[in-house]
């Protein structure tokens, strides 16, 4: 299993190849499109993370000692970032998820995507991912 740190470094490396925002956004759109489909049974009200403009659904499962995340959004750019977050945090141990600083988002120049004003639910999604980790840890 790769550590969160390793995966973040991989992503930073991938993004360092893009020298224009268009390439970066194109890549995010592709990631968004290839994100595993969230089954309809999980696209329920209880799993909605409210963002004002784009909605996010998040579902988490306990697998052995790790947590597996599944998520979706109605906006493709949001989905692209979700794909990155899942790649970093899914199948990791609760403690590591809770401690993750997720600095890569800033390094690859997407921190504006996490600002509250973007109203896309991503910031709340990270919080919710950590809350799940905290909950599983205490189970």
């Amino acid at each position, binding site marked *: 299993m790769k550590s969160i740190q390793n995966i973040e470094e991989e992503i930073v490396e991938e993004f360092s190849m893009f020298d224009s*925002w*268009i390439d970066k*956004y*194109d890549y995010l*759109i592709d990631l968004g499109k290839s994100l595993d489909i969230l089954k309809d049974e999980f696209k329920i009200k209880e799993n909605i993370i409210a963002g*004002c*403009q*784009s909605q996010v659904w998040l579902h988490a499962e306990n697998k052995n000692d790790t947590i597996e995340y599944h998520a979706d959004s*109605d*906006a*493709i*750019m*949001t989905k692209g970032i979700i794909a990155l977050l899942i790649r970093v945090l899914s199948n990791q141990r609760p403690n590591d998820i809770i401690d993750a600083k997720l600095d890569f988002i800033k390094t690859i120049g997407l921190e504006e995507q996490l600002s509250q004003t973007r*109203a*896309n639910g991503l910031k709340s999604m990270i919080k919710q991912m950590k809350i799940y980790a905290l909950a599983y840890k205490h189970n």
Partner: protein
Amino acid sequence: MIDPKKSFPILETIVNENKLIYFDNAATTQKHHSVIDEITKFYNKENSNIHRGVHYLSQLSTKKFEESRVAVKNFINAKHNHEIIFTRGTTDSINLLASCYSKILKSGDEIIISEMEHHSNIVPWQMCCENTGAKLKIVPITELGELDLNEFKNLVSSKTKLVSITHISNSLGTINPIKKIINLSHENGAKVLIDGAQAAAHVNVDVQDLNVDYYCFSAHKLYGPTGVGVLYGKEDLLNHLPPYQGGGEMIQEVTFEKTTYACLPHKFEAGTPNIGGVIAFKKAIDFLAETKVETMKKHEDHLLNYATESLNNINGIRIIGTSKKKSAIISFTVENIHHYDLGLILDKMGVAIRTGHHCTQPVMKKFNIAGTSRVSFAYYNTTEEIDYFILALKKAIKMLS
């Protein structure tokens, strides 16, 4: 014609290495340089509280504050200066009136609003109804995004005490036939408030000709400063309304047994207002009056038609709000593309548009959509900017498909 862009310094802004194209004018317009200069001048040379001091600065700021009131009065052709109440904005104006009506309405009374109202013209009336037991009636809209006037005729009756309708819809662009609505309401003995937030800078408003009872708007959508708004009301009606907020400025005499209230407009202007903002607002009105709203409207109509045609030529675009009588506001959806994604990519290309529900969730529900992308034009926008926007939009659609 001198380039109007030159008068709006912020339009020189570079966004992501592109020249800013500002198409979010329905949310707020940019500020004319004379407005900005006046604010600076006020705080540098004139700042003082108004109506209270005998000293030089207080005299000066009071005089200028009252000159703004006269400018607004002339701008909307009110009969008296004291029919102009300064507020914080449209929302504040509507809340002021709704709060006063909360004290005079009874159970069994009815208020009529429409399905296309901004949340600011919905929630205060819901609160008013909750407080009084009055009933809220909603005029539906048609597929074109127009008020269903036949339905309005069915709803309005002797029970109707107030009709509160928007002059121009901020999400659909529809210009409503308010004169007809005012006449029909008056025939039934109802008073009328018109929400002019989207109208005052874009169509001529003559409150006496309209015979409207109350009219409100925000300075910031008229090339003026934020935090300033207007509530116009007919003298007789305002005199008979109970006061709104209590405090300084709005009293005649205060004793612990009984306080008597000041006369209009002070009765509704408790506390220290946004003095610098109100004074600078006059510069925006001067700009509108000098340029002439009709002249601006002609240009904006041209932009509206040009952009509508260009958008209709793009596959998958659906314009929401297709009334024949529209202001320069275009809401649209693009098949299979989320408005949020579109807004993000256009922003990267320097184009500022608005995405979402535009504080009109009932309209989104009516059209069964989560939100729209909206472009809205002002006098300083150009067809060249629309050309660039259309190119950017096509590029964004290509990226997202």
